[in-house]
């Protein structure tokens, strides 16, 4: 019997490799970053920029202020609205308000939701169960319904709990949207924590006797940051859309009014003056789109599966 030693066969035949994707510059997120930068600068420096009119400036046509007096043109870039204010200036001031509310709400949601999610995911057991029930309850009500309830009742709540009576309208909306975003944030953070706590480095930290608090802060939290940032950016887009919807339904900030309010004010006059409603729509759309682009880019970079917020 001769044992022949056959070499391991080298792969022959055609090995089909996936066609390497052409290297195209990712235009989407670059556009998003550019748009947000320009919008941010305009919004927060609006008082000092010469080409942005003041919030209350009325544009007069032939000596008098006319309803929808001007279409888009050189004098007023986006035309004038039904009280003859400059639509462009109002869009910019609306952007400031919307961005402040969106960012504030995200911070609230991220802090509370993240904390709940980490606790539920790390300790499991009854903590997990309690958080799950809270999250389920928050998710069972349609988000918009919950927001309407919260904002509408906020005046009454302020009356009975005087400790929070100093809240302004925009802060109320901020807190409301923050509460709305607790549930999705908590859910995602919990899932991530569940995966992380089984990893070896967490086991190592625990086996050298690290206290849970230290494990959470030093081992788990830093690893949650990419996911949290990604979800926060995508969530910002959604929160800004939600803020617009609330303002559209008449529960927004009175002054400076935001995009949703502007859309609502002139939506019935689309035939007469399309610019007054379409331009705020465009601003809202481009802003949400930018956040989505950047969120998508981050999700790809950190390899996070699209989280349904």
């Amino acid at each position, binding site marked *: 019997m001769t044992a022949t030693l056959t070499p391991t066969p080298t792969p022959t035949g055609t090995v089909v490799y996936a*066609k390497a*994707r052409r290297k195209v510059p990712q235009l*989407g997120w670059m556009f998003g970053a550019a748009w947000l930068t320009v919008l941010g600068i305009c919004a927060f420096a609006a008082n000092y920029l010469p080409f942005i009119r003041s919030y209350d400036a009325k544009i007069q046509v032939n000596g008098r202020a006319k309803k929808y007096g001007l279409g888009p043109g050189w004098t007023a870039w986006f035309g004038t609205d039904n009280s003859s204010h400059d639509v462009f200036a109002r869009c910019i001031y609306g952007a400031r308000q919307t961005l402040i509310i969106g960012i504030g709400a995200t911070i609230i949601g991220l802090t509370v939701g993240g904390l709940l999610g980490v606790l539920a995911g790390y300790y499991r057991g009854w903590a997990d169960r309690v958080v799950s*029930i809270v999250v*389920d*309850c928050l*998710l*069972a*009500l*349609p*988000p*918009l*319904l919950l927001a*309407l*309830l919260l904002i*509408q*009742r906020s005046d*009454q*709540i302020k*009356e*009975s709990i005087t400790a929070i009576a100093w809240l302004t309208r925009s802060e109320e909306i901020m807190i409301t949207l923050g509460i709305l975003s607790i549930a999705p944030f908590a859910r995602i953070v919990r899932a991530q924590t569940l995966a992380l706590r089984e990893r070896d480095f967490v086991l190592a930290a625990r086996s050298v006797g690290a206290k849970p608090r230290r494990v959470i802060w030093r081992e788990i939290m830093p690893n949650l940051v990419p996911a949290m940032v990604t979800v926060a950016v995508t969530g910002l*887009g959604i929160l800004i*859309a939600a803020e*617009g*919807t609330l303002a*559209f*339904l*008449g529960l927004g900030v009175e002054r400076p009014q935001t995009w*949703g309010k502007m*859309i609502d004010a002139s*939506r019935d006059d*689309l*035939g007469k003056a*399309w610019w007054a*409603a*379409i331009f705020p*729509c465009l601003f*809202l*759309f481009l802003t*949400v*789109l930018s956040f*989505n*682009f950047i969120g*998508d880019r981050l999700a790809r970079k950190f390899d996070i*599966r*699209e989280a*349904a917020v």
Partner: protein
Amino acid sequence: MRYLLQRLLQFAIVFFLVTFGVMVFMRIGMNKPGDPALTMLGGTVRLDQAEAVNARYHLNGNVFGQYWFWLEKMFRGDFGVSVQQNTTVAKYLSGRVLVTIFLGFYAVLWALIIAIPTAVYQAYKRDSRFDRGGNFLSFLFVSLPALVLAPFIIFLFVVKLGWFPRTGEKVMPWDDLGAHFRNFFLPVVVLTLPLAAIFARLLRGDMIQTLQSDFITLASAKGVPPGRVLWTHALRNSLFSLLTSVGVQLGGIVGGALVVEQYFNMKGMGSLLLTSILSKDLFVVQSVTAIVVAVVCVANLVIDLLYAVIDPRIRHARALT
């Protein structure tokens, strides 16, 4: 079976907690007994009238007592009264609920009809021109909430082209089918497009993953025609995220319907909810939230059961526990 019971229990806990929470919430700042009645009646009422309402709906007792009586009445079909609208809540709701049901049903249906074939073909021809175009479009529409999409659509189809009426009248399909579709078309489009985009993105991602698994290779290797591989083997295994998302989006549709009903001046649940919340119509708000929560929970339960229908592995795993 045990699994089902567990889910039902969870559903019950959520339902009671949420309805109770809404009830308590609506009563914040109404500490004095009799206040709910005064709020409900609004304006100037004589005290004995308020007393009568309080007695009838047990609004004098503490919150738990109130909750119990409200719940008991509701299960017997008495949703209470809406003094502001001068009818019973049941009558008020039944006039409105169909519009929203039609909107939601058409929106989900069309979103699925658009999303499934697109996503399947996108995944099949991955990175082709069709795939990239579809990706781009779906990305655009994901970022277009109803609030923004509606003015564009109205501007194009109503103002410029004049193909559809500005307001969606409530025409039932059994009255006049053509008018029904003409009135519902634009609102449904506004709701459908973002929804379809979300569904298509989810399904495409899952399909691409499924198509790379071994059993797909096996199926094509043993000579199953590609269409069959795609539509039965692959699709069936990729439906999970999509189904979950349908459940999650149901709540969102209620919100979307609210906006759309405002735009098209339709008298549906959304506008009813808005007016009742703004005017503190206690019983209406409570009943509507209860119904909505119940619908969302039941839909999620059904979807959960559908998982088992699609995937025998889940069915057997559940049968064992």
